[in-house]
């Protein structure tokens, strides 16, 4: 094949690719536009069962109660992703460069505020937008801020306490599910009177786990409990 032929075939390939993608976009747009203008979806089912859910925010009710399975499995996905990252090797060696005075002052002020914010988001999730994922993300941001300003966990917290915090969310979720299974015979079927308390318990554990897992993912490898600091 000559150079000119090669150029032509790559040009043709580009056009074919573009046409196929445009056809795909057109098909998807047609599918979206052919949906009815108004759809109730599952709104009515959710609203009519809100009294039994134990919370007042419909999104939290769906996440932790009506579709608790999704959230349970998602905590599993987070843990598996972290195991995948850890199995690829240790985190890059940590250079101990102390943060400057401005960053140090900022981090010391911000991190407690972020932890407070995470607690507020967790609590407010029962009645308004908020909940375990938002709170966990804020907690993870605080952790990443600490990592970036080269503050690390003390070595004694690096091994078992860290791993305990990582599995706490999934563990609490499964423990509640199994307990309910043995009491009522249904997995994750909260009794309406206890639902609020159970959801808060699961969310608190999940918040901590999500925060620690995301911060550990940011580290990009298994933390070595060597003599770092």
């Amino acid at each position: 094949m000559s150079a000119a032929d090669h150029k032509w075939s790559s040009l043709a390939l580009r056009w074919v690719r573009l046409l196929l993608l445009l056809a795909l976009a057109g098909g998807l747009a047609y599918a979206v536009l052919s949906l009815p203008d108004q759809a109730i979806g599952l709104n009515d089912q959710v609203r009519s069962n809100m009294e039994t859910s134990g919370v007042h925010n419909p999104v939290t009710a769906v996440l932790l109660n009506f579709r608790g399975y999704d959230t349970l499995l998602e905590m599993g996905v987070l843990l598996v992703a972290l195991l995948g990252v850890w199995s690829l090797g240790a985190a890059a060696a940590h250079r101990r460069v102390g943060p400057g005075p401005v960053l140090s002052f900022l981090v010391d002020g911000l991190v407690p505020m972020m932890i407070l914010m995470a607690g507020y988001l967790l609590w407010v999730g029962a009645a308004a937008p908020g909940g375990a994922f938002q709170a966990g993300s804020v907690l993870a941001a605080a952790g990443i801020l600490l990592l970036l300003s080269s503050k690390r966990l003390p070595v004694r917290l690096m091994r078992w306490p860290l791993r305990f915090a990582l599995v706490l969310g999934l563990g609490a979720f499964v423990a509640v599910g199994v307990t309910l299974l043995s009491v009522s015979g249904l997995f994750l079927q909260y009794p309406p009177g206890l639902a609020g308390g159970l959801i808060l318990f699961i969310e608190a554990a999940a918040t901590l786990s999500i925060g620690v897992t995301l911060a550990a993912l940011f580290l990009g490898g298994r933390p070595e409990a060597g003599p770092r600091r």
Partner: protein
Amino acid sequence: MNTVFLYALVGVGLFTLGLYALIVHTHLLRKILAVNVMGSGVFLVLVALGGRTPGASPDPVPHAMVITGIVVAVSATALALALLLRVRAETGRTRLPEERLE
């Protein structure tokens, strides 16, 4: 045609753009970013279509699914980035080998 469908169509556009970038670019970091753009498009479609309810309050089920999806996308991205770093450490390359048209 209302704002719901405008947002949904923007989501479709983002998905297609991401797919194009995923096919065209050989650099692995760009592929990871492309998958993220595709995911954002899907989330936008889901959230937009959840707003087609007659009343003021949107359907909470797609919103809950998107919250779940965002966290899964973030953790999958972290795993992909760790794999990318490992590929670079092993082979010294961050691109897929170009395929020659023969």
